[in-house]
């Protein structure tokens, strides 16, 4: 079982967590000003990274908070976890350096 380090609770079993999709997607300030393509881009288009990928997770069966994680999509290793609203850690700050 994977251990995921919740920024609030520390390392916890993955069964307690739920995946929340790609992180750092800002909702457009004025959605009404967007054309259909731009709105579809915001709603549906996501990165499909091979390697480090920033994503939202929720500690559903724990503190119930959302947070962000950088996960290596190849190895499934969680390289960093950090609170929502803080910037993505630089590659050098990830577990084991750049992924």
């Amino acid at each position: 079982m994977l251990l995921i380090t919740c920024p609030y609770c520390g390392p916890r079993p993955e069964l307690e967590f739920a995946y929340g999709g790609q992180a750092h997607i800002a909702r457009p300030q004025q959605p009404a000003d967007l054309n259909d393509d731009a709105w579809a881009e915001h709603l549906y288009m996501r990165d499909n990274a091979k390697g480090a990928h920033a994503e939202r997770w929720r500690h559903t069966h724990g503190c119930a908070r959302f947070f962000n994680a950088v996960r290596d999509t190849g190895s499934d290793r969680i390289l960093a976890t950090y609170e929502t609203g803080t910037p993505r850690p630089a590659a050098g700050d990830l577990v084991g350096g750049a992924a």
Partner: protein
Amino acid sequence: MHDTLTAQRPSAASMSAPAIVKPLPAASRFILQGSAAVMAAAAAALALPDTKLACRASAHGERAILWLGPYERLVIGGEAEGAELTRLLAAALVDLPHSLVEVTDRQIAFEVTGPHAAELLNSACPLDLDLSQFPVGMCTRTILAKAEIVLWRTAPETFRLEVWRSFSAYVVGLLEEAGRA
């Protein structure tokens, strides 16, 4: 509710005695959500130390405040204390934005106690319950097989489980089955 539950189930776990599962007396319960200032004021109103550390409970007598999340606490009091707790908290928090919800009848408390209590819980709970990792006074929401519970270690060999009412038969049955082996 508690009494019928135990009466129906003369605990197999208690007979083979790796750990004993028994219902705890009725209590009043609240979920409090708000900022650190709210938590400090609530703790002061109940004459308990503030629970600033993650996953820690502060308790005295029948009253306890359990850290569930950075902005969420479970407040427990005696069965007859519900109205008094509401009054104390409402008075202390009147000027602070917060949410206080009574959840007294939502859940039931069980005690799991015995030298193998942690082992028994670990049959269905993936947390590391070693004393060094889950010391006395630690509490957290977690999962026990398919049920969400609040787990609180009140003594080295004693845990308190807060189980949602409709999950209680499932949780007790599961622990009895696990204790039988």
